[in-house]
């Protein structure tokens, strides 16, 4: 996720948790540009080392073990960038998210994107530059489309305060219309 989209959503000096923070570069950027108090959550030791090298506070934790450890710790914003579809239980993670932070930024790869539909039409699981892994190696185990995701948010009474659809190159689409077909990724600001 490019931190540019987050600039309007994440307030200066707010307390931010990045769930699945990778090497911590997103948090580092937010710390530099917005002076946020950032904490990352990551389970991969090599990525954790990179976080420490990047001067980013990081907590080793398997997101599949749930988010209860991070509830009510005073976070203003939680970020879940392209990791919800990797979880064993994405629904319970979504339910817990608003106990972790008052607002949440969630992004999902859209499996309704027309290029993916084409690949599927050919009778194969999609492999592309954005989804480089074969079916037996991919971490994406709970695939969804923009439609599916927005439907679940409605069911869980999670308010989508703002959303951006991104094209294949990570640039925002000008219109939201037919996003389920045209967007490669959906980025959401979710609140109670």
């Amino acid at each position, binding site marked *: 996720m490019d931190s540019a989209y987050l600039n309007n959503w994440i307030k200066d000096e707010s*307390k931010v948790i990045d769930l699945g923070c990778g090497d911590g570069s997103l948090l580092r950027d937010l710390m530099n540009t917005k002076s946020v*108090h950032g*904490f990352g959550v990551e389970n991969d*030791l090599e990525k*954790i*080392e990179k*976080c*420490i*090298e*990047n*001067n980013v*506070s*990081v*907590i*080793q934790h398997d997101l599949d073990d749930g988010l209860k*450890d*991070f509830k009510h*710790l*005073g976070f203003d914003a939680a970020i879940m960038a392209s990791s919800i579809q990797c979880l064993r239980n994405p629904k319970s993670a979504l339910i817990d998210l608003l106990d972790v932070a008052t607002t949440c930024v969630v992004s999902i790869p859209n499996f309704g994107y027309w290029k993916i539909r084409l690949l599927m039409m050919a009778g194969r699981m999609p492999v592309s530059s954005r989804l480089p892994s074969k079916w037996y190696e991919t971490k994406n185990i709970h695939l969804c489309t923009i439609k599916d995701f927005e439907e679940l948010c409605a069911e869980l009474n999670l308010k989508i305060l703002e959303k951006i659809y991104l094209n294949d190159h990570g640039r925002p689409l000008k219109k939201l219309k037919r996003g389920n077909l045209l967007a490669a990724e959906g980025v959401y600001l979710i609140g109670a």
Partner: protein
Amino acid sequence: MKKNSAVFKSDLNFKFACNKTLPSIELVYETYGEINADKSNAVLVCHAFSGSHEAAGLTSDGNKTGWWDEIIGPGKAIDTEKYFVVSINNLGSCYGSSGPKSISMKTNEPYGSKFPDVCVLDWVNSQKLLMDELEINCWEMVAGGSLGGMQALQWAVSYPEKIKRAAIIAATAQTSPQNIALNEVARQIIRKDSSFNNGEYISYNTTPKEGLKTARMLGHITYLSETNIQRRFGRKKQAPGTKVAEEVNFEIENYLQYKGDQFSEFFDANSYILMTKAMDEYNLADQFEGTMSKALERIKSKLLIISFTSDWLFPSWHSRRLQKDCILSDVKSSFIELEGSYGHDSFLFASPEYSKILKTFLGS
């Protein structure tokens, strides 16, 4: 590696947290590596319960290496080519710093059981005296495992301006009732030794060796893990002719007796009691009206909190709890749980992951 051993004597009245005072104190310490021109490359390492100032290189008896030799040295996690490492024997211990075996100037007798109750804060305050003596303005890092980790945490809280990083390893901000229970059994074993003489064994010319030995055997089990002793000893029988005692059947028994015997040769029983009491009493929040956030809000350094999967003396939840409190108080802090099969003692041994994390943290 350049290595120095020295004794620091402070002639200032030293006031303990328990309000008792000593007119002067002595600290034996070692340094590794060289201090740079602006004295900005100093690292303090703090030892655990039965450790000493001999952390790296060969020990003074020449046949062992220091307790953290796998971590401290040229090119190692705490690289002595870059950093000047200070390692101090704690007050109340028995390796040369002021402790129960020291002679009281008032009575001309060893302090024995009358040595003031010492606590983690006292250690940190005494280490600060040496820091001033060495004209070090700020530690690049204070690091330690177990009771040493508690000192690193205490440094971050008590002297926020004097420390940039704290590595708090296999430790806790508050010892558990299980920790206290195990320590109390060990203390009882020592006290019940007829040679203990209420702690005045030096004047009676006796040593409660048996008590110390058995206490250490119990302690030693808590530093290992079930997997580790399973792998190392299994149910193997001790070969005849190699037994330390007639009654020994299994290798594990022989090993514990051997270790206990060794320990009782050099460790002081009053120190054992003092150091375990210091561990039991450790509860950081207590110093701040029971409010953890008041303690942690003082911190200006970065913390690295490490636990090990097989540690059942200070299991990971201690570290997780500290990390959670740090998040609540906006303290820059990271938590990592490392694989380590040695139990609590895992903090002593360098694995590639452990070394790399420590090195990266120190260099960050």
